[in-house]
């Protein structure tokens, strides 16, 4: 029984590698919450018509906050180069989700905040640990992702969103 399932899975991976030619990777549909508690579907993120940066983070995650601060510091400079939208998806659960709004406001970040309280979107996006960053093109396709954050990683993120904004492949050098 279990072997069968594995076999099917393997088959599928094989098949899917053939069907990836177009590489149109869409966002999965998951309900998130805005800071005032309203339900927002994750697919709405893809309809901005601009380059989108998605940062998975949490208030207890030091490198996540360093990444958001680093982007926050250059946000306006970047806006002059690329017309982009930034979503910070907090995976804080009921322990700390009430901390998110006062924390973000006191930092004065420009990004849009959504709450993923039971990590449903995180799981659907196959994120293992935070921070984890995705970039969507103007059509809402996922075109780039990166796990972790080290000081200076925002420099390569800027290169990526510039390329994506020009319709280029961000992984090409």
């Amino acid at each position, binding site marked *: 029984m279990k072997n069968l399932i594995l076999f099917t899975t393997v088959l*599928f991976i094989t098949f899917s590698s053939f069907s990836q030619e177009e590489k149109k990777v869409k966002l999965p549909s998951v309900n998130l919450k805005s800071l005032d508690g309203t339900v927002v579907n994750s697919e709405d993120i893809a309809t901005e018509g601009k380059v989108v940066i998605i940062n998975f983070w949490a208030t207890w995650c030091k490198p996540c906050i360093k990444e958001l601060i680093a982007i926050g510091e250059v946000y306006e400079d970047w806006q002059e180069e690329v017309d982009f939208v930034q979503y910070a998806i907090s995976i804080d659960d009921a322990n700390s989700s009430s901390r998110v709004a006062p924390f973000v406001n006191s930092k004065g970040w420009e990004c849009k905040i959504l709450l993923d309280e039971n990590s449903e979107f995180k799981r659907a996006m196959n994120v293992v640990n935070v921070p984890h960053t995705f970039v969507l093109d103007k059509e809402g396709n996922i075109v780039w992702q990166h796990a972790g954050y080290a000081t200076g990683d925002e420099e390569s993120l800027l290169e990526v969103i510039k390329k994506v904004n020009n319709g280029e492949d961000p992984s090409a050098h």
Partner: protein
Amino acid sequence: MKKLAFLTIVALFSLNSFSQSEGQLHGSFQLDAQYYANDSLIGAVVPKELTGINSYANFNYTKGAFKAGIRYETYLPPLNGFDSRYRGQGIPYMYASYVADGLEVTVGNFYEQFGTGLILRSYEEKNLGYDNAFNGISVRYAVTSGIMVKALMGSQRSFWDNKGNVKGVDGEFSLNQLVPCLKESKTSIILGSSFVSKYQVDNSSLYYLPENVGASAYRLQINRGKVAVSGEYAIKINDPSSDNGFIYKNGEALVFNASFSQKGLGVLLTAKRIDNMSFRADRSALISDLNINYVPDITRVHTYSLASMYPYATQLKGEAGLRGEINYTFKKESLLGGKYGTFLSINYTRMANISKEAVNDTIKIGEPGTLGYTASSGNYFSELFSDDLFYQDLNFELTKKISKKFKGVFTYINHQYNNDIIHGANSVETQGIIKSNIIIADITYKHKPRTAYRLELQHLATEDDYGNWAAAVLEISIPQWFFTLINLYNYGNVNEDQKLHYPKFAVGYNRGANTFTIAYGRQKAGVVCVGGVCRAVPASSGLSLSIVSSF
């Protein structure tokens, strides 16, 4: 059940080629392995196999409105500190789901949370080995814009088994979307309510036990401009269990948040009171097995190694708690802001026991087979500031960009930790409250745009437990690589031969969505906690490898 889910998946996969939209397969992989070396000085535990390996592989398939997935897990054997009942490998998680006109149906394994989780939350936390996924059916329906109804039934995961019988329903209403005159209102109001019931046969010869135990919860969230208020209240009928010592008292829980925030300032106040709220699919389950609900932990999660030495664990039997937090940014060019601005966060948390009174003169508090005790939420403030302290944490954190190249985070923490309650007095030598003061400086020097050095200096001062500790971390990050050197030194230990160093060296490589880490060194015995749920980690020494990947 498994066959059903499997059939559905296969049926859908074969339909794949007929329908229009293109299917997508994505997933993730995580492997944590360790080779254990002998190290009698720190009391390292070496398993017979000499190694421990935990690994998880997720595959998620989506095609239009259809989703399916599986997770394959391996513990050969589990890493030290994880429950030995995990030993083995298999597919404990698989699901298929679809969405049509606002209706989402999931069969197989799934996670769910009602409100803040006070009466129902299933989730996974791999670092703890925590996974109480449901195995059953879940239905969510957006009746109209502003009304969301969820219902579920199923058993729950307990290692490689599924146990219990749980049913639940939840409704959430956004008044602004439902009531015409509120549509334009600046005040947003959301109401929610849920009901959960579990069934377990009464096979006790000692007691007459309730076979169906119900719990209900009511919540509210109000936002108006800079002000936000939210709260949830839950009540559970009598549910004698191993965890509460077979008492028949009802359970009660209340969590309340109020916040004010504007650009540069955020203030948060949280109050919480829990009374007899252990709610499990099996009345004999203990520790972190088969929880149906989840009681939020309001203490601050510290991630620096010495700051996380004494972490809080939620006390389901009863606790009263208060959290206050102020976050403030001193503007650029102001006296304290300097050239780049300064961020200050002050956080205070206090957790204490609830006050219990005997039901009458003949029954002692907590006597099995009786009501157990009486307690009133009216005593909240006197309970909170009583001597029956569980935990207190006052901390200041200052984040400051010093110059273009230097950034620093400076932390001071004053901790009080009740070792008898949180750690269990029987298992440790230290009794009573451990008081400690911790200072941390975390300085980053950005040498080149993508090369940075980070130095962490930490000190923990205490006259209790193992005495003083000092720690230093040096981290170098260059594009795609990082190198970390860590040393913890227990220089204040009263036993000369226990004044030990705990050095560790780690190298990491990261490209895209793949991360590899190799580390060699000593790990002190301690506790890992995520959200008030804790796992004891025994001391170990050796080589570890970690791989994390997404595709």
